C-alpha cells in the first residue's frame, strides 16, 4: 500500500521493541501456568462435551473433579479423560453422557499412563483434524467465491437473544450484502466460568455462545453463501472467563472470527489478570491454528474516555495485542486489530482527525485486517443525525482501506438492532463506499497539514505511553490505572481461583501440537 502520512519508520520500530519488552515478562509467567479454562478447552478438542441435568457442562465436571482429587490439575486434564475413555471402552460421546449422568472419572487413578497417552493423542488428532478440515473448507470457499465480498468486509451484528431469531436476522443481513455476521453474546457471559450447552433462546442483549448455537448459525450462513456465491463469515466472542474454550468451540464449528483481546477481560470485565494472560495465549494459539481472525477490543477504550485525548492508548494497545498475538503464533493476516470512530461529533475537523488516525493504523499495521468500529458513544435518539454519523464513518473506513467494517446502526442509542436498522445500515454503506470507492487512491494529505500532524502526534504519544509502561511493567501499569482509567490489582478480579501452576509432569498434547504447528514456544 501507498503510505501517505510520512510517519517515522524508526518510531514505529521503536514502539514494536517496547511492546516486545513489555510482553516478554508476561510470557515468562504464562509458561508456568494453566487454567481451568485451558484444560476444558483441551478436553473439548479431545471430544468432551455435553452437560448434566443442571446445565453443568461435562468439561467443567471433569476439570472440577480432577482439581478436587489428587494430584489436582497441575498435570493437565487430558490424560485422565483419555484414561477414562480407554477404561470404559466407550466412545467419547457415550462417556460424556455417563459423566453427565454422574460418573466421576477421578474415582480411580490412571491405570496405564502410556496407553492413556496414546488414546489422548488419538482423540486430539481427531479434534485437530476436524479443525484443519474446517480451515481447508473455509479456504476453498473463499477461493471459489473470490472477489464477491465487499472491501472492507461489512460486519453486522445480531443480538436477539434467541438463536432462531438470530438466524432470520442474519440471513436477511447476508442476503443484503453482509460479509460477516457476529452473534453478540448475552450480557455478561464473559463472567460465567463455563459455557452453556445446547441451542438457546433466552439471552439479554445478545445470545449465549454455545457450540450448538455456533453450529446452527454456521449452517444457516453456509446456505446463504451458496445462494449468494459469497462466503459469509461467522464471528463470536471469546474474551472472558472461557476464552480458550470458546476459541476451541469456534474452531470446531468453523467460525471465522473471534473477539479476542489480550486485556479486555481484565480492564472491562474485572477478570483477574494472571488468569487472562494465560487464557488469551492458549485461545490465540487455537485461533491461529484454525485460521480464525481475531478481533481485538481497542474500541472499548474510547467508549469510556475521550477519543481525541486517548487515541494513543488505542495505538499502544494495538502494539501490545500484536505482540501477544505473535507470541501465540498468530500471523499478521489474522490480526483484526481494533479501533473506533468515537470522536465527539461537535469537534471542528473531527472527521479529519479520525481520518488521520484510521490511516495511521493502516500504515502501521499494513498486513492486519483492521477492525474499525462505528460511532456508539455519541449516538443519540436522533436517528437521522446518527445515520449521518454512521455515513461519515463509512466514508472514513473506505477512504483508509480498513479490513473489517462494523456497520453502525442508526438506533445504537436505543435498542439492539431491528431488522430494518440493519437494512438501512447496509444499503447506505454500500452507496457511500461505492460512490467514493477510489478515494484512497486519489487523495494525498498535504505536507505540514493537520492530518499528518495528528497522526505523528498520536504515534509520539503512544511511544511515551509504551515507554512508561515498560518502565513500570505491564501488570503494574494496569494496577496503577494506566489503561482505560480503571485500576485492577494483580490479585483482584474474577477467576483467579481458576489459575493453576503447572506441575513438572504437566502434559497437554494439544498445546504441544499447536506450538509445533505454529512454530512457537515450548
Amino acid at each position, binding site marked *: 500500500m501507498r503510505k501517505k502520512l510520512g510517519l517515522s519508520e524508526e518510531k514505529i520500530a521503536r514502539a514494536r521493541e517496547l511492546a516486545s519488552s513489555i510482553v516478554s515478562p508476561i510470557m515468562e509467567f504464562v509458561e508456568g501456568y494453566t487454567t481451568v479454562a485451558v484444560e476444558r478447552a483441551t478436553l473439548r478438542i479431545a471430544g468432551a462435551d455435553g452437560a448434566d441435568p443442571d446445565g453443568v457442562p461435562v468439561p467443567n465436571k471433569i476439570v472440577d473433579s480432577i482439581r478436587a482429587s489428587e494430584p489436582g490439575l497441575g498435570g493437565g486434564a487430558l490424560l485422565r479423560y483419555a484414561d477414562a475413555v480407554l477404561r470404559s471402552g466407550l466412545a467419547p460421546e457415550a462417556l460424556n453422557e455417563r459423566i453427565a449422568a454422574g460418573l466421576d472419572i477421578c474415582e480411580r487413578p490412571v491405570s496405564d499412563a502410556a496407553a492413556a497417552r496414546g488414546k489422548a493423542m488419538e482423540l486430539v488428532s481427531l479434534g485437530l483434524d476436524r479443525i484443519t478440515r474446517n480451515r481447508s473448507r473455509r479456504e476453498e470457499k473463499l477461493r471459489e467465491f473470490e472477489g464477491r465480498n465487499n472491501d472492507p468486509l461489512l460486519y453486522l451484528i445480531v443480538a*436477539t437473544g434467541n438463536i432462531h431469531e438470530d438466524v432470520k*436476522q442474519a440471513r436477511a443481513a447476508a442476503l443484503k450484502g453482509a460479509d460477516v455476521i457476529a452473534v453478540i453474546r448475552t450480557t455478561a457471559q464473559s463472567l460465567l466460568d463455563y459455557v452453556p450447552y445446547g441451542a438457546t433462546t433466552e439471552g439479554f442483549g445478545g445470545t449465549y455462545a454455545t457450540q450448538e448455537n455456533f453450529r446452527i448459525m454456521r449452517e444457516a450462513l453456509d446456505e446463504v453463501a451458496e445462494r449468494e456465491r459469497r462466503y459469509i463469515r461467522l464471528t463470536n466472542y471469546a474474551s472472558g472467563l472461557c476464552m480458550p474454550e470458546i476459541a476451541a468451540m469456534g474452531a470446531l464449528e468453523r467460525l471465522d472470527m473471534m473477539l479476542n483481546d489480550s486485556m479486555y477481560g481484565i480492564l472491562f470485565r474485572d477478570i483477574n489478570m494472571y488468569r487472562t494472560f494465560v487464557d488469551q495465549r492458549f485461545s490465540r494459539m487455537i485461533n491461529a491454528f484454525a485460521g480464525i481472525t481475531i478481533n481485538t477490543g481497542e474500541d472499548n477504550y474510547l467508549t469510556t474516555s475521550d477519543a481525541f485525548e486517548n487515541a494513543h492508548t488505542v495505538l499502544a494497545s494495538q502494539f501490545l495485542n500484536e505482540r501477544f498475538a505473535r507470541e501465540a503464533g498468530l500471523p499478521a493476516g489474522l490480526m483484526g486489530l481494533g479501533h473506533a470512530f468515537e470522536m465527539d461529533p461537535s469537534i471542528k475537523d473531527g472527521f479529519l482527525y479520525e481520518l488521520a488516525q484510521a490511516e495511521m493504523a493502516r500504515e502501521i499495521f499494513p498486513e492486519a485486517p483492521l477492525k474499525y468500529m462505528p460511532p456508539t458513544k455519541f449516538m443519540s*435518539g*436522533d*436517528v437521522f443525525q446518527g445515520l449521518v454519523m454512521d455515513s461519515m464513518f463509512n466514508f472514513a473506513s473506505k477512504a483508509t482501506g480498513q479490513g473489517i467494517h462494523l456497520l453502525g446502526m442508526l*438506533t445504537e442509542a436505543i*435498542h439492539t438492532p431491528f431488522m430494518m436498522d440493519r437494512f438501512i445500515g447496509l444499503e447506505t454503506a454500500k452507496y457511500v463506499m461505492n460512490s467514493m470507492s477510489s478515494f484512497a487512491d486519489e487523495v494525498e494529505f498535504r505536507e505540514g497539514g493537520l492530518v499528518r500532524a495528528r497522526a505523528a502526534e498520536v504515534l509520539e504519544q503512544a511511544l511515551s505511553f509504551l515507554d512508561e509502561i515498560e518502565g513500570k511493567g505491564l501488570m503494574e501499569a494496569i494496577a496503577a490505572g494506566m489503561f482505560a482509567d480503571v485500576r485492577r490489582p494483580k490479585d483482584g478480579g474474577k477467576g483467579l481461583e481458576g489459575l493453576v501452576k503447572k506441575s513438572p509432569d504437566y502434559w497437554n498434547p494439544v498445546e504441544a501440537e499447536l506450538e509445533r504447528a505454529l512454530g512457537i514456544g515450548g
Partner: protein
Amino acid sequence: MARIVRPYGDTMDDGKVQLSFTLPVPEGPQGREAARLAVLGWGFKDCEVVHSDAISDDFSFYVAYASTDKGVDYDSARPDAAAETSMSMDEIDEFIRERLGRKVVIVGACTGFDAHTVGIDAIMNMKGYNHHYGLERYRMVEAHNLGAQVPNERLIEYAEKAGADALLVSQVVTQKDVHIGNLTELIELLEAKGERGRFVCVAGGPRIGNKLAVELGFDAGFGRGSYANDVAAFVAKKIVEKKKAR
C-alpha cells in the same frame, strides 16, 4: 384466508414502528410527554420518545419508537393496480395486431401548469425508462407526446384531430391537490362534449393511484415505478374490450 401480520422489529409480532413528527409546542419535558401521549393516542400500545429537539421557539421535533397490537390481514390486501397482469412490448404489439389489426393512437401530455416532462417522457419517448422502451418504440402504437404545460382544451383538440384512442395525462405536482382540479377538469370537458366514451383515459404520476384516477372518472391510474408496457397493455386490452362491447 386471513393472515394477520404486524410490524417486525426483532421478534415476530413485536409490532415495532419508528415515527417522527413535529409538534407546535416548545421543546421540553412537557412537549416530550405530549409527544408520548400523542403516539399512545394514535393507538400504539407503548411508546418511547427517544429524541426531542427545538425547531424554533414554538415548534419541536420528536423521534419515537412504539409498538402496536393491531395487525393487518395480508391476504385480503388487494394492491391498487390498474392491470392485473402486464405484457411485454412484443406481446402487446402482437396483441394489437391480432385483435385490432391497426395501430393504436395514443396522445400524452403533462397538463395544467405542471412542467414535469420526465415522467410522461419515460412512458412515451423511444428511449423509455429503466430498460423499458417507451410507446414511440412500439410498432403497433402511434404515439404523440405533447410535452408539459398543456392546457386540457389543447389536449382534447389535438386528440380529436389525431383520432386518438387513448389520452395519457401526467400530473406530478400535487401540492394543495392541484392535480385533482386538473384531472377533474379534463373529464368534465370531455363529458360536456359528449366525448368521454371516445377515449380511453389514463392518468399517471408519482402520487397518482389507480383508485384515485378511477374515482376522478379515468379508466385507470399509474403511479411511481410504472412503465410503458404496463400502460400499453392496459390501453390495448381496454380498447379491445370497448370494441367487443359495441
